[in-house]
């Protein structure tokens, strides 16, 4: 008997290995959608006429955002006898990619839930890979019209609506009223939006007078920030980042308009108005007169820096076109293609972004509401700095490009901005980067 034991062990090893090989083969060859559906495990189930839906969100249930999701799902389940939604909270650990890693794995093993959350710019790649399903048909036109245009733009791929968000985000030009008064400079407003030249002129004057960079702008933040915050310069100047289908960059990414927009950034740095490595909180401390930042900076300013008199004016526009384009983007909800109940899932997506949900979300984390109807329940957004943020979103919100090769586009945009900040010529840099994007696009065409 003793000598059989090793043989058994080796045999079992062999079997387990071939087992691995087989499942690999199945997933490699894919198989028809029917067989895929048959093998799905984490999918919704129907029991006694009640549709069970599973939803994944990208935060833990201890965060303010997670608490709102939990509350709103509970409210949904109470209001719907025939649908029961259960949420799984998945933190974005590991450089923020933990949640996306989980989605990637679930795609490979056909274990996606019915509803997922996704970051705005991921929509195109998820559609391209058949992960999310169109939901536009399940949502009334009346409801759709209530969302900010940038929310619809962000969730639309190839003319079809796939995702909806509960909150928006943007970047405004914060200014220190005392410093502006000292130099006799009149701030801009929604009726009189500052152009790049206005900002350069004021910046130059204050930088010289205070002997300190007048504009705090986070040129040292890395990752998605650069395309999020600075692509509007390009759009405002009449340029674009990539073609409509997201696969042509030549002549678009390296256009003269874009070179001029990056030239504006270069002027800010060359003139010493902004630096590649701004001192942290230099606006909060009253050293810088201006700051380009999002609404998330407001609670900190209000709570911890009560001595600073600050307000917000709209994002500066190109002196050439004077067209307002402002950063936008947020996480959104979408129904997955693997779900057997897309109609019900779409209902959940709408519920999670309805007026009540939007109000709850804004109250919890302070981000601008995604629905126009929510504003009447949000006094903070009816006046002052927050109203400016909301107004500029409604008028000039511009979603980031929709492209299956978005990560490469975003990276090269960031690299171009970095190169310009560190002194290189905008047009030369753009010409170099466009080749990288084109090469990547070639693989997708």
């Amino acid at each position, binding site marked *: 008997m003793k000598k059989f034991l090793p043989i058994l062990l*080796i045999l079992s090893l062999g079997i387990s290995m071939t087992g691995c090989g087989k499942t690999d083969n199945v997933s490699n060859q894919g198989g028809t959608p029917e067989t895929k559906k048959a093998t799905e495990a984490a999918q919704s189930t129907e029991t006694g006429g009640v549709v069970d839906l599973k939803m994944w969100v990208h935060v833990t249930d201890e965060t303010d955002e997670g608490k709102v999701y939990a509350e709103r799902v509970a409210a949904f389940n109470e209001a719907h006898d025939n649908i029961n939604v259960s949420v799984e909270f998945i933190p974005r650990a590991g450089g923020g990619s933990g949640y996306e890693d989980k989605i990637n794995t679930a795609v490979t093993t056909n274990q996606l839930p019915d509803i997922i959350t996704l970051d705005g710019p991921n929509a195109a790649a998820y559609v391209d890979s058949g992960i999310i399903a169109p939901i536009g048909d399940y949502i009334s036109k009346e409801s759709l019209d209530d969302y900010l245009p940038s929310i619809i733009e962000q969730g639309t791929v190839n003319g079809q609506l796939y995702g909806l968000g509960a909150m928006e985000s943007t970047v405004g030009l914060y200014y220190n009223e005392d410093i502006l008064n000292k130099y006799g400079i009149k701030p801009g407003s929604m009726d009189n939006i500052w152009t790049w030249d206005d900002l350069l002129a004021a910046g130059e004057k204050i930088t010289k007078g205070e002997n300190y960079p007048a504009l705090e702008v986070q040129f040292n933040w890395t990752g998605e920030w650069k395309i999020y915050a600075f692509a509007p310069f390009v759009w405002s100047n009449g340029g674009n980042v990539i073609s409509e289908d997201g696969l042509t960059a030549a002549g678009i990414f390296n256009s003269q308009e874009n070179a001029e927009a990056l030239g504006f950034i270069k002027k800010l740095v060359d003139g010493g108005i902004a630096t590649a490595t701004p001192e942290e909180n230099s606006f909060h401390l009253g050293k810088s007169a201006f700051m380009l930042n999002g609404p998330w900076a407001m609670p900190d300013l209000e709570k911890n820096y009560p001595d600073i008199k600050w307000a917000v004016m709209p994002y500066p526009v190109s002196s050439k076109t004077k067209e307002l384009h402002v950063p936008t983007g947020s996480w959104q909800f979408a129904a997955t293609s693997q779900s057997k109940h897309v109609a019900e899932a779409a209902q959940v997506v709408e519920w999670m972004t309805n007026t009540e949900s939007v109000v709850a979300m804004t109250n919890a984390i302070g981000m601008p509401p995604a629905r126009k109807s929510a504003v009447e329940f949000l006094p903070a957004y009816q006046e002052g700095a927050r109203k400016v943020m909301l107004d500029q979103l409604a008028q000039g919100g511009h979603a980031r490009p929709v492209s299956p090769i978005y990560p490469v586009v975003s990276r090269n945009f960031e690299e171009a901005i*970095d190169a310009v900040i560190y002194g290189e010529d905008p047009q030369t840099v753009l010409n170099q980067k466009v080749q990288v994007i084109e090469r990547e696009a070639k693989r997708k065409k």
Partner: protein
Amino acid sequence: MEMKKLFGKYKLKETLLAYAFLAPALIFMLIFIVAPIIASLSFSFTDYYLLKPNEIDFIGLENFKYILEDNLVWLSFLNTFKFIIMVIPLQVGTALGLALLINKKIKFNLFFKVSFFSPVVMSLVVMSILWMVLLNPQSGLINAVLTSLGFEKQPFLTSTTQALPTIVVASAWQGAGYQMMIFLAGLKNIPEMLYEAAGIDGANKWKQFLYITLPSLRNVTVFVMITTLIGAFKLIIQPMVMTSGGPKNSTLTIVYYIFQTGVRYRNVGYASAITLIFTLIVTVFVMMQRRFLKEED
């Protein structure tokens, strides 16, 4: 005949038993080392896109052609080599120095031993964040010390030329404690009588170090250098946390770029191809290093 048969049977039994004992380790090795290597090897000839696991096509040498055109691959290799050239002398030298220090019988020896070793047990991410706080160009402690001594403020991680050397110093500081323990073990193995004999012959401390300590530590040094080299090739956490590979890709290392290609750009096939090239280069380097260090024997 009879004997041979018996012997053969005995041998088979022995062999099988040996495999049985090896089986637990072998199974794990197959699943977690061999299988991924084979998978990655075969993916490098495909267009595997992370989100389309059902549409993997064989594309021959396309990925490798693409590597030739991809400046970032070569830039990240170059950065990795720069890092290696700087970090090996610094880290091995520091480790040896620390080992010599705590090898002396002085007061609070244990305290120093623990302090020198503690960075090793610390999480790389935590360590990187602590260094970032210290190195902050405006409000960091290091620049405060520099300015109080009359030096100019340094940009450190925000400069294209200083970022990589800064990461070298942080990494050497973090890693040296481990190699210090290995050196210390080597030092303890040198017989005391060698030093006594040399002392009687009139060799001073420096000569003793040069002609007794260093030659005795030869094998230990080879081992330390090879492990440091392999560790240095795998550099990813520090640039990921401290600089995100910037500014201007000056701290983009090859493993970090492979990670970005596979996870952020989702091109698993292409990332596998770079990994294959990377593995070949590391293998060649380790073999060269062993050869080079052995020949002097």
